[in-house]
């Protein structure tokens, strides 16, 4: 099986599981609503303060939700020893990695749209006019997060301390994404062009490419038994 075929199979399988159980989507809706509520209590009611904190809080919400999403992509494989069978899949294990990255990105983009809507609703931010400029930021920032998150989720999936270890390994590596995507989101929310600070865009693109390639190359070593 070519690796793209394997990617496609994984994508179909995981999305079908999601469609049937709706476990991910339901938890996600509830969790993101809860986060927005908590954030609102944490920063008080001043509209100016809310606007200032919004880009950082948005990405914090994405990353916290994403952490749970990443852990889930490999936890569903633990049941019935599915991971053992995936390991035996014919062809390049890199295809399995790419499949999981695509699934992870789809889940996260869905979550991000929900969180954006929640922010708009509860923080009185008008999201509709800025959604266009924000799309590339969401796309780029999420790919980098998922590229590393998928790899680390695979590493921690079989460990006893996985709940602690995954954020411990993942969060420090997310500093460049948080800074770059946070800044670009700030520009987007203010209605400015993202090209006002192209170095952040370049950083995100470079980050995505480097970590997708590294993830693809190192994933087979993680799956080896």
């Amino acid at each position, binding site marked *: 099986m070519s690796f793209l075929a394997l990617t496609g199979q994984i994508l179909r399988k995981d999305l079908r599981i999601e469609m049937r159980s709706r476990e991910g989507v339901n938890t996600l809706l509830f969790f993101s609503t809860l986060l927005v509520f908590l954030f609102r209590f944490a920063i008080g009611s001043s509209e100016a303060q809310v606007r200032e904190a919004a880009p950082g809080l948005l990405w914090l919400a994405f990353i916290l939700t994403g952490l749970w999403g990443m852990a889930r992509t490999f936890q569903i494989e633990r049941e019935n020893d599915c991971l053992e069978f995936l390991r035996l899949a014919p062809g390049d294990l890199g295809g399995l990695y790419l499949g999981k990255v695509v699934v992870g990105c789809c889940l996260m983009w869905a979550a991000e749209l929900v969180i954006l809507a929640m922010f708009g609703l509860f923080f009185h931010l008008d999201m509709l006019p800025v959604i266009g400029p924000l799309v590339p930021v969401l796309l780029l920032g999420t790919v980098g997060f998922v590229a590393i998150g998928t790899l680390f989720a695979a*590493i921690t999936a079989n460990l006893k301390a996985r709940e602690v270890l995954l954020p411990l*390994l993942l969060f420090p*590596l997310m*500093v460049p994404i948080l800074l770059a995507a946070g800044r670009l989101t700030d520009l987007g929310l203010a209605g400015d062009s993202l090209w006002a600070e192209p170095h952040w865009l370049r950083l995100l693109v470079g980050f995505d490419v480097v970590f997708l390639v590294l993830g693809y190359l190192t994933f087979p070593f993680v799956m080896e038994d």
Partner: protein
Amino acid sequence: MDRLAGILGVGAGVLLAIGLWMGLVQAPPDAVQGDVQRIMYIHVPSILTAYLAFTVVLVASIAYLLRGTRGWDRLAHASAEVGVVFTAITLATGSIWGKPTWGVWWTWDARLTGTAVLFLIYVGYLMLRSVVDDRDRAGRYAAVVGILGFFDIIFTHMAVKWFRTLHQPSSLERGAIDPALYLPLMVNLGAFITLYVYFLLRRVRLGALEEAVEAEVLGG
């Protein structure tokens, strides 16, 4: 190997003594900062040695994934541990230096933030190693984190640089410091690198002994 380690250990001690005497006694105090600036002779060599250590982690990790020989894994593990110690020294001395010069123990400056992230990444690396029982699996997992961590640090440094920075320019940049301060700095750098290699050899040997004992106990 043991003899070499012994010689390096003595060499590191002698070099450190000379370097510290030069830095603390012989070199003139800084024109602006006075004696406070002398902490540079520890601060700068320790971060440079830490960078060296994490580069060794990267190389040894790649070699371990490609070759699978235990030696590379032991080297990566040992170098990461020593690197974390030197990074901790950098953060501690930087904090002590920051209080009298900037008025605060910690500031969200680019270099400080970058170094803190560096520290966190490799502490995570060591924690991962400690929770995986199987040596080969621990080695492979850690190697992946060691490789990704190194590249991530490059991005982190770029990202945090675009914040306003309070830190003085690198002491190694030409013209940043007086030649009278340069020589003691170089001697200390030599001493720290010798010390690093000494620690590394000892830690690698310790790792090999641990594995040998384990194999014997398990009847391997």
